[in-house]
């Protein structure tokens, strides 16, 4: 076995040193009925080239996004990741390092996290950010719980523009909670949330661009929430939008949660992704997740450590702010490297390019007979109405080699009014010819 360093002779030597007759003697505490009392219906070990052949065959049964025109977004976006990013994150010292609990030999990871926190704070316009959470959806649930701790109030209102998966995760986390209000899907981008805020409201959760691609008015939401002593939680699933859209922090957000996958991370069929969370300075001690802070070492040199860990489970146990005990370290590294490569100049240009492509898509698709575009404003994603069930149409387009977007009903089966809606995204990788192919195919299918 290529991964096991012992020869049989070494095993025998070691058993001798232990004074055990055989390895089974080391398992003597296991009830006899449970020890090796079975044979496994599993294949035996395999040469690397056969494992590779098996996995390549499975990979070959998937249509990769790069194989043809591709317009799927809805919370995960296909951006170009520079080769440097993927190269660097595979370096042994990044890839195979442990959580930086021993700061003297983890300054690489820690300084990177400090830089990452700074980057996230800058793009969201917030005071502080943590060292990442699992993803945007669980981050949203954590933000809701955090708001309750901060306000000591319990009502939570989720906008109808919140990504349905995010809504579902919050529902699962707050199972059967009467104080959780989930507003109906709002495909037209209508402002739906402000009227529900009352004095018992801990927080409202608003996504922008929302699930249907509409840009939401955060300032109005913040004002309305703050007037009742509630917090505004802003969710951003397409973090590239922050290169062109006003920072939530500048519009009154109290907690910002983003899905950070767009920067540095591949689609990966849904994971691993990267939850970003940023908040106001005064809320930091109620923020879940790891935090990295600056300090000095015994010789006075600048250094970094995980800090404020009295919030965390390994210290606080049942009094922790969350049970979280990992971050999305390697994804955060990829994000941070990609963001460092972009810098302000690149980040803004990337956002502009995405928006330009979306304008081109919206104009082209609006010209297809039978299609109407629901969005007045948007970043890189729009929703279209196709006057027939979207699921079948999208499947037929897939058979033509075009991955045309997400039927809204896949995520909202309970809302028949969205059955004829498709959510379509573009990125810098979408070409004019991709858009032309989509429109041509749509025209034929809807004729």
């Amino acid at each position: 076995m290529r991964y096991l360093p012992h020869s049989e002779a070494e095993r025998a030597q070691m058993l001798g040193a232990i004074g055990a007759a055989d390895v089974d003697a080391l398992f003597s505490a296991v009830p006899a009925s449970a020890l090796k009392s079975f044979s496994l219906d599993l294949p035996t070990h395999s040469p690397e080239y056969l494992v590779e052949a098996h996995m390549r065959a499975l990979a070959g049964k998937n249509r990769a996004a790069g194989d043809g025109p591709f317009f799927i977004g809805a919370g995960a976006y296909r951006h170009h990741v520079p080769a440097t990013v993927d190269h660097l994150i595979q370096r042994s010292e990044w890839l195979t390092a442990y959580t930086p609990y021993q700061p003297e030999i983890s300054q690489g990871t820690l300084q990177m996290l400090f830089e990452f926190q700074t980057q996230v704070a800058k793009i969201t316009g917030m005071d502080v950010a943590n060292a990442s959470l699992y993803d945007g959806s669980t981050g949203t649930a954590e933000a809701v719980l955090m708001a309750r701790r901060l306000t000591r109030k319990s009502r939570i209102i989720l906008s109808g523009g919140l990504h349905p998966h995010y809504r579902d995760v919050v529902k699962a986390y707050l199972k059967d909670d009467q104080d959780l209000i989930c507003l109906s899907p709002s495909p037209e981008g209508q402002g739906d949330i402000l009227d529900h805020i009352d004095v018992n409201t801990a927080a409202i959760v608003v996504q922008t661009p929302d699930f249907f691609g509409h840009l939401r008015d955060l300032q109005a939401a913040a004002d309305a929430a703050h007037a009742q002593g509630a917090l505004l939680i802003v969710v951003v699933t397409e973090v590239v939008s922050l290169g062109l859209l006003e920072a939530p922090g500048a519009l009154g957000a109290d907690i910002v949660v983003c899905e950070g996958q767009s920067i540095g991370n591949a689609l990966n069929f849904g994971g691993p992704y990267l939850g970003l969370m940023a908040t106001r300075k005064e809320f930091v001690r109620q923020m879940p997740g790891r935090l990295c802070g600056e300090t000095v070492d015994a010789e006075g040199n600048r250094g970094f450590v995980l800090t404020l860990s009295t919030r965390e489970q390994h210290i606080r146990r049942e009094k922790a702010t969350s049970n979280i005990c990992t971050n999305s370290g390697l994804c955060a590294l990829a994000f941070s490297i990609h963001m460092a490569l972009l810098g302000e100049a690149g980040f803004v240009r990337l956002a502009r390019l995405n928006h330009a492509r979306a304008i081109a898509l919206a104009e082209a698709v609006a010209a297809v007979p039978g299609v109407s575009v629901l969005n007045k404003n948007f970043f890189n994603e729009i929703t279209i109405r196709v006057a027939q069930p979207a699921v079948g149409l999208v499947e037929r387009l897939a058979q033509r080699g075009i991955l045309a977007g997400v039927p809204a009903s896949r995520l909202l089966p309970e809302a028949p009014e969205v059955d004829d809606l498709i959510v379509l995204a573009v990125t810098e990788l979408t070409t004019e010819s991709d858009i032309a192919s989509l429109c041509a195919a749509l025209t034929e299918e809807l004729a």
Partner: protein
Amino acid sequence: PEEPLLFEIGDTDHSGVDLPDVELGEDRLGDFARRSPLDLPGLTEPEAMRHYVRLSRLNHSIDSGMYPLGSCTMKHNPRLNEKIARLPGFADIHPLQPFSTVQGALAVMDQLSHWLMTLTNMAAVALSPKAGAHGELLGMMAIKAAQDARGEAGRRIVLVPESAHGTNPATAAFLGYTVKAVPARDDGTVDVEAVKAALSSEVAAIMLTNPNTCGLFEPQVIDIARAVHEAGAFFYCDGANFNAIMGVVRPGDLGIDAMHINLHKTFSTPHGGGGPGAGPVVLSEALAPFAPVPFLRKTSGGIELVEHVGEQALGRVTAFQGQMGMYVRALTYMLSHGGDGLAQAAQDAVLNANYIKARLEAVFSVPFPDYPTMHEALFDDSFLKGTGVSTLDFAKALIDEGFHPMTMYFPLVVHGAMLVEPTESESKQTLDRFCDVMLALAEAAKAGQSERFTGAPFKAPRRRLDETRAARQPVLKWERESEVPQAAE
């Protein structure tokens, strides 16, 4: 070694990507265009390469040295896994593509599920949790959903042994349970009688780690399971230590109801400086109906994902279908090892821990000597008595010898605990060097060379860091000199 912060190297003009600067004409941003400054420094590609290469060299890593780190299973991360995970057919597919276009990906999930259920002899598996603690949450949510469905929502107590990981009580509390501690016996294991005494109609579940955090297999685990079930409660097993028994003992044969599996510990997906993890949860027949979405269903047309079910199940614990990148890596690892190789790995992990224990026990005191240890060896710090060297000092001195410190002060039930888990990845040569170093350090401590410890590490990129200062005056992001608020005094 000093590496400046990226903000001290780059500026907002520099960029390491080339992108066309498009004219937008009339934008569609409404009134929401960005007005506040980004102020985000960039690096050109050569600058970025050097920054991140240099920074990385300040880290310890598996590839450069051993982690004798109890309770954390830091094993070799095969690069085949990384290569496979990056095939466009896995990395470049979207979670919301039509099922017809992702049959290979769904087959990966199906095959991984088969391996996990077979290795554990359990009825079902929920793949989607993002990490071990998330899996724990899911498992306890499933238990809660099952009891709610039975009309037993009144069960508000969760039993947790004192030696448990911090996530266990945190998870229970997160779901609103009251945590009740179960004391351990003097031999480091849980007494079935103590469990029986704590059980009642108010108890929802017990959360037990097995092998436990003292490195011992709970000898009465089957009896405990029986008692728990007889009391109408569920048995949640913390699977963090599954590496000790995979292929050798099936948790399902012990009577557990739910257990998370850390793909990043047991199945070699990389730790990545703190994540991402992946924490699938295997479930017993009693809990299977309460599994979250999405789950797999095989149809005549292929495999599909069930993404919505009724209210009884616990719902959705994350967007999309979880850590696909980790599923691919873990399955690749499983296929490489095979069932035989995984069993051999578990046995080698146990062999290695017992070898370390055998080589060190004359000098390092073993608090629970009654059983052979499993995958990790637990020592206490009584050998340091009177030396002026603390357990922390001792651990930091290991850094100067090229090793990561062992786990210290955990489990809490042992004074000055030192928990050493070598994993199966370490060669006898490395184990011997580690033991030699441990013995030499113990001798040095006893010989009064306390300065070698209290000041340690000396050879690391940093000396000991002031954690108190970091917590008292938190500096959590970089600010330009001009932005840093002046201290009041």
